[in-house]
């Protein structure tokens, strides 16, 4: 396994198995694809093979990333980039690094995480998010009450912490699908 080439450029993804074809998809598959972020992507056309699970996962993913109030969107994106770096998911990290950069106008934060690792110097709120995301990803059974303190110190309430937990957990999910059903195509 070579070292992942994390990037802020757009990355494509290619499926390792034949995908569902829009022309022969069932009405339920088409409806589930319409509820997904990109109905024509080979990734969702792969997941559409099992329409029962896609019907549940797309609304869950959307709510975890975009539900109103609670954790600000940029914080959710940062957490998902950290998880994707740890798991080595080049595609996921690119997509969500770009969203973070759009929201914050601070692509340099992501570039430093790529270049210098998760220990790079960060503002306190980002430090707390990165550390929590890394520990919940690597050692979920070691997370305890004491791990809430750094999040409280930067002002997070219960709902924000709830949302952070779900964003991290959702990318334990997303990375495993992306990395084991196909592969990233690096920018040309």
């Amino acid at each position, binding site marked *: *396994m070579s070292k*992942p080439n994390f990037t802020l450029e757009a990355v494509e993804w290619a499926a*390792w*198995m*034949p995908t569902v074809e829009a022309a022969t998809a069932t009405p339920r598959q088409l409806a589930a694809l319409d509820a997904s972020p990109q109905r024509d992507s080979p990734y969702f056309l*792969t*997941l559409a*093979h*099992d329409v*029962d*699970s896609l*019907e*549940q*996962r797309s*609304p*869950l993913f959307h*709510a*975890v990333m975009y*539900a109103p109030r*609670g954790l600000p969107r940029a914080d959710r994106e940062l957490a998902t980039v950290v998880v994707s770096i740890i*798991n*080595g*998911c080049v595609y996921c990290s690119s997509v969500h690094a770009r969203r973070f950069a759009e929201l914050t106008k601070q692509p340099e934060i992501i570039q430093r995480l790529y270049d210098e690792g998760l220990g790079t110097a960060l503002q306190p709120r980002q430090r707390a998010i990165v550390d929590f995301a890394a520990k*919940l*990803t690597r050692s*979920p*059974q070691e*997370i*305890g*009450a004491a*791990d*809430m303190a750094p999040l409280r110190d930067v002002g997070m309430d*219960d*709902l924000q*912490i*709830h*949302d*952070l*937990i*779900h964003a*991290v*957990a*959702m990318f*334990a*999910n*997303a*990375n*495993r*699908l992306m*990395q*084991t*059903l196909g*592969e990233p195509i690096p920018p040309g």
Partner: protein
Amino acid sequence: MNEPDIVDAAAGLSSGSPIGMLRRQRDVFVRHTQGSHDVLVVPRDPAGVSLVERAAAALRVATIERDPALSAHYREQLRRAGADAATIAAAGQDAEVSAASPRLAAILRHVALVATAPGSATRARLDALQQLGLAPRDIVTLAQIVAFVSYQVRVAAGLRALAQEVRA
């Protein structure tokens, strides 16, 4: 509407507790987390991946992740699906299995790889699973089960810790 679900049970929450109530502010999360579990582990139509194979895959991931509550849950699901004692024992280990059938052994090996080292998956491994008779749909189902339990373990662990802090 506020009935306890599997995440509540795994995180040690009652639905009327502060964190149980907090979860219900995000009802879409609650509904589709439980819904994902149900269609993946106890579907009405299991299609190409049997109920035993589904529960065995989920048990293997919960075991690898060292979550006692979710391991117990999936062991019970596997028992209810009709698995024999040898299959339950094989799925509930985090090491190589010898007791299972060649197909179940291959499934559990693939599940362990997706759970622990997703970055080392290859197209050749999917080709090998297809040669064992698994259809693309079945391989997607297995990936979704591993991905879901990996998510569920972290949701439960995070909420368990948050509840401990709120009680302290």
